[in-house]
């Protein structure tokens, strides 16, 4: 540091310099992150290949083998119609992940745009947007989601929209704060001198700097969105039977717990819990990956 004129013996590119190298470094550095990514890979595998790999058709009924306890034939047992619970749990992964990823992506995009605008230009725009978001947050969020689905109809798309709407305020506020503290920073000013329009300064220079905290929010939110979708299905708003979905399966299985057939509700519930757990663990790792300052 003392002498900048001397050539630094740093001509070789170090391992952490490439994006892939950095990801490997982050994963190695923190075993929890490694575990989270491994579990994520498992869930993604289930989502992509699950339907092709499961031993039974998730919709095929078999009245002769209804309500059987877990066994080598049926790892998670069978339900009241004789369907294989294990197959249904695995096949449901795709639908549940789709709902949560789509909903989070939607609220991420909309929230980022609204928050960036509010944070960068401020003034009346900021005030109006903030009050709108406050209005959304004034509702009990789950009740709001119920209302949206009930009003728009029981479809997968509507569950996605409802979940997205109730999440928008969190993203918008986070982005607003992150953009706001950087809007007069030196690098934003320098970018203007370099011929960037306000919009470009915002989109290319300021917004990406809010990604690290956003990634934490995204991963927590993914887990939360899965719970939300399952919750909606649980109370009968959302995915309709017989489609395999964790929320419905827990709801249907709940009726049988009193009579001792615990596996109907426990296994989908366990999967739901593991999925949420995975996403919650993922946050720190994702943040470290998108933060260039971790590349030392």
């Amino acid at each position: 540091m003392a002498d900048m004129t001397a050539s630094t013996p740093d001509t070789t590119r170090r391992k952490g310099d490439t994006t892939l190298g950095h990801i490997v470094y982050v994963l190695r550095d923190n075993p929890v992150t490694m575990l989270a990514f491994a579990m994520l890979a498992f869930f993604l595998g289930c989502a992509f290949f699950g339907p092709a790999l499961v031993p039974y058709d998730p919709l095929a009924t078999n009245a002769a083998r209804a309500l059987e306890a877990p066994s080598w034939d049926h790892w998670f047992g069978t339900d009241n119609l004789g369907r294989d619970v294990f197959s249904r749990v695995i096949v449901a992964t795709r639908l549940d992940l789709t709902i949560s990823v789509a909903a989070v992506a939607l609220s991420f995009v909309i929230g980022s745009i609204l928050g960036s605008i509010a944070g960068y230009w401020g003034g009346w725009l900021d005030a109006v947007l903030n009050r709108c978001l406050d209005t959304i947050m004034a509702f009990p969020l789950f009740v709001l989601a119920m209302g949206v689905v009930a009003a728009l109809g029981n479809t997968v798309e509507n569950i996605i929209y409802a979940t997205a709407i109730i999440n928008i305020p969190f993203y918008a506020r986070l982005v607003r704060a992150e953009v706001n503290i950087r809007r007069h920073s030196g690098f934003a000013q320098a970018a203007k001198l370099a011929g960037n329009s306000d919009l470009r300064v915002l989109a290319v220079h300021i917004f990406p700097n809010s990604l690290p905290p956003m990634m934490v929010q995204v991963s927590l939110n993914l887990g939360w969105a899965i719970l939300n979708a399952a919750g909606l299905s649980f109370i009968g708003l959302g995915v309709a039977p017989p489609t395999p979905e964790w929320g419905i399966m827990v709801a249907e299985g709940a009726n049988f717990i009193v009579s001792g057939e615990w596996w109907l509700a426990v296994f989908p519930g366990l999967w739901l819990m593991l999925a949420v757990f995975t996403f919650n663990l993922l946050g720190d790792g994702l943040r470290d990956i998108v933060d260039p300052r971790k590349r030392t």
Partner: protein
Amino acid sequence: MLSIKDLSVAFKTRKGEVNAVRGISLDVAKGKTLGIVGESGSGKSVTSYALMRILDAGGEIRTGEVVYGGIDLRAASERDMRDIRGREISMIFQNPRAALNPIRRVGHQVEDVLIRHAQATRQDAKAKAIAALEAVKINDAVARYDAYPFELSGGMCQRIVIAIALACKPQLLIADEPTTGLDITTQKAVMDLVGELARERGMGMILITHDLGLASQYCDRIVVMKDGLIVEEGDPQKLFTDPQHAYTRKLVDATPRVGASIRNLLPPETRTAEPAHKVHDRPLLEVRDLVKTYPGKSGPVQAVKSISFQIKSGQSLGLVGESGSGKSTTSEMVVRLQDPTSGNILFDGQDIAATPSARFMRHPMRGEIQMVFQDATDSLNPRGTAASAIAEPLARIARMRGSKLNARVAELAELVGLPQPLLSRFPHQLSGGQKARVGIARAIALEPKLLILDEPTAALDVSIQAIVLNLLVDLRAQMGMSYLFVSHDLNVVRLLCDEVLVMKHGEIVDRGPTAAVMNNPSHEYTRSLIEAAPQPPNPVAA
């Protein structure tokens, strides 16, 4: 009174162990002031943290002993240390705003330390706190007692910090860069105050600073540190006139002072002849009756009150003033980041103030006026590499692409002396001086006619400052640019500028050729600025 023997401190980091202090010994006598001078990373602050035993996590005293008045501070229990801190040994920190709790009234913060050390009871704490505030010459201490830190100026906050440090009448005061970030007149006031209080109370003091000039003025003895070692120790006068160690000589040379030219700041062996720059008669920039008014809580605030000046083609103009003088607002209006309330800015005869700043990025003159920002760290996008920062104006304004762009970026890096391998680094992987070079390369990428320099060296060590200032002089001669050099430091302005403007409260109070203004200030304010600057003893010509 305090004696440190063979102290070494190490920090555990992700990349292994770092030896911040590697075996230093020093003594502080009662009533004497010891200066520890060094650049960033020299271990001077770590030394003081170690003796107060407030090292960051991961830091550890490895060897050596620290004895204060017969007590071994290294062996003392945490409980004893708590009694010693504030009562026996006190500390003033670098950033006074960060050292004060923002949500508590300053008076209460003074009371805290008094009550903690049983110097006051709940009943008389307020009176004693006010007395402590008065001791540091705070006007209207009774009213200030109820103020929050954000309501006070930087200099006032530093006085509060001093009041807290001195409230319990400690025997030893450690001042860690107490005036960094303060205006030059405030710096003088604060340093004079600390010196006077130390004399009055017979207090020992350790002054930690990167400014050799400042240390020479207020210290009885100076130790110079580099890379965790003491390289030289001695009497300030002697250190300046006859530095023994090469590093001390480099520091002495790099300290701006009266009578030194800009090349004198560099070590003798790297000095070359100062290139001449040509000043044409044609005015490049003409500012007429520029006014900037902000809407304020209690009526509009006039930041800039109708100022006019011009810069000739090839000329360097210094704009000097303290914080709040309107110099930054003026430079931001000239570089078209802000719109003036009224007035004209003629650049090459064209009124560029007529185009609003929000649309100026498409103006054909955008590439002609560029700026180097004050804080190099803040002015680089943390997510972009050095190369991407330099390439930005080339890609956006000059529409360069591909290999041509890369070649130009490499050429600019060469021009500012930035080693090529560093181009792929992110800002946090670069040192302060390297970041300053990236900022300069970006600003000169389009070969602007006018470059605005907003305190480009304020955050840099003196030796780096010397290199960067000389780089600017070379670039000016090479590219024929005009400079508008904004600074609070007259000693630096003098080195670089042909003419100088002195601003105060939004008005120009003094102007003229630099030598005339410096040697013969016509305005009282200019005189106070010149007097406030530390005057290091002149070294013997090397």
